[in-house]
């Protein structure tokens, strides 16, 4: 597809190159804008490190003899919390940040400009994800580093399997982010409150900061219905080297199947929901609504 002005004949990209070039331009734009808010950038980084410290220090109440003892006695507990925290960070970021980004551009009026062009809408959503991935990834590495510093070396068994599970869980999480962006187009600012509600529900039902065994019996069947809960369970079980009682929700093969299905289906489902909502916004004329 080409712009047809005489000055630009033959000067346009086509096919996958056009798609990739659009994606790169969008990512660059997102990163440039992010870097032009330096105070927010530094503050959000610092905030994550402080949260990690608060959680770790709170955990020390169960090990009054000190940090080293805590690390020796409860390397498993540290692993449960640390790896749950990794998934929690990605989920909380993607769940709201894609929708927030879309909503911000809707309010600014730039979302409508995007729809005036032939640029891929999938590339647009993906660019928001890519920046989140880079940013949250950097924060996760810093947070894991701080945890290791405070509690000693974290368990890291079965690394390839752990990374594979994380990749699939993230793919599914991004799909959930697309679906949430669709919802944000419809409910606008209420999306933030709803995202908070989902985050807290995730903190309980997907047990990122405690073992599933800590959940009341009547809640466990609900957790088993959530694919991301299997992602959390398989991820940390793999990295902790499958200690006794792990994985907690289902046999590993079943958990891997659930996580794979979640990672492969959710992005398309989320994107389909987004396109559906976008068509509704085009019918209503709300693409540039406050």
């Amino acid at each position, binding site marked *: *597809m*080409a*712009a*047809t*002005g*005489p*000055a*630009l004949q033959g*000067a*346009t*990209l*086509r096919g996958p190159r*056009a798609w990739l*070039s*659009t994606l*790169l*331009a*969008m990512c*660059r*734009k997102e990163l*440039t*804008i992010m870097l*032009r*808010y330096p105070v927010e950038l530094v503050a959000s980084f610092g905030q994550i490190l402080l949260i990690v410290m608060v959680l770790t220090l709170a955990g020390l109440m169960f090990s009054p003899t000190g940090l080293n003892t805590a690390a020796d006695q409860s390397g498993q507990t540290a692993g449960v919390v640390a790896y749950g925290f990794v998934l929690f960070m990605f989920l909380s970021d993607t769940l709201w940040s894609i929708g927030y980004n879309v909503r911000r551009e809707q309010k*600014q*009026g*730039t979302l*409508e*400009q*995007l*729809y*005036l*062009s*032939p*640029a891929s809408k999938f590339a647009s959503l993906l660019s928001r994800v890519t920046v989140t991935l880079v940013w949250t990834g950097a924060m996760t590495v810093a947070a894991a580093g701080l945890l290791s510093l405070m509690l000693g070396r974290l368990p890291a068994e079965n690394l390839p399997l752990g990374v594979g599970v994380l990749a699939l869980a993230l793919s599914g999480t991004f799909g959930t982010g697309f679906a949430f962006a669709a919802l944000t187009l419809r409910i606008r600012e209420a999306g933030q409150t709803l995202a908070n509600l989902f985050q807290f529900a995730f903190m309980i039902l997907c047990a990122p900061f405690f073992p599933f065994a800590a959940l009341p019996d009547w809640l466990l069947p609900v957790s088993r219905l959530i694919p991301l809960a299997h992602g959390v369970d398989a991820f940390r079980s793999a990295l902790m080297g499958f200690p006794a009682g792990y994985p907690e929700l289902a046999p590993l093969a079943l958990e891997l199947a659930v996580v794979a299905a979640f990672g492969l289906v959710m992005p398309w489902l989320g994107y389909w929901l987004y396109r559906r909502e976008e*068509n509704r916004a*085009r*019918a*209503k*004329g709300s*693409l*540039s609504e406050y």
Partner: protein
Amino acid sequence: MQGQVRIENLGKTYHARQRRGLFKSSESRVEALKGIHLAIQPGELFGLLGPNGAGKTTLIKCLTTLLLPTSGAAWVNGYRLTEQDNLIRATVGCMLMGERGLYWKLSGRENLEFFGALYHLMPATRRRRAAEIIDLLELGEIAERAVETYSSGQKMKLAFGKALINDAPLLILDEPTNTLDLPSARELRAVVGALNERGKTVIYTTHIMSEAETLCDRVAIVDRGEVLALGSVPELKASLKREAVTRIEGIISNAAARAVEGLPGVSRAALAAVNGHNTLTVMSPEPRAVLPRLIEALTAHQAVVQKIVPEEVTLEDVFIARTGRTLADDTRVK
């Protein structure tokens, strides 16, 4: 019906839901476009003239694929609306919502290059095209500054430049001189005219009558979602050939205007407030005969008349003759 843009019986109805309490809501229905028929020929500079709320922007948004029409069909650059939307987007340059369509944290040049990427221009072409536009619009001095530091007029200019980035054969400009000062507006109109002379088809919406008169080859006068009149500026003025226009300035109440409209020999009278003064536009086939009765009616309603000027017919008069209102009226459905 042939043309670079063909619109057949295009309609758009909005359904708005109004919340009334936590669980109650009511639905309202607004017909923004009512069966529009138009054909715009290649190389034409076509004006859409109408007051705020007439349906101009809704029509533009339908043609640029931002809005889904409720009924009818349209073809833009030979591509059918709702079926070949991406081809339409690739071949149209559009300025809509002015400064709101820019990234304020990016510089002018970064904005242009970014939007060039959205039209799949090669990186070198993006840079060249951005530089050409910056030169054309004389934005060189501010091109590297963040858009948030621009004045409103500079933002509008850049938004106009953005519409040129893909060098499309069809330009759609929605009130591009809004918020521009007079010299900048004149410059921008000159650029639009030059682009049109180089072969670009332009659709230009405005509520400023003089813009449409000086710039456009043909004009469609739109009001309340309908095309009221269509033709070249001389044709539209000629449609009022038998009418003469008299403008009366002063302090004139609505009651006085209504009294004038009721006078025998007066076909239309419309009151508009301009710069704190009221201007009453009176149309009549026999202005000399009507004048004494007109002054009498105004005086009887305590009007203070400062000036009475017989004038040439303008496009605004065509609008007044068809609607009884002026272009300054806001006809948006609240």
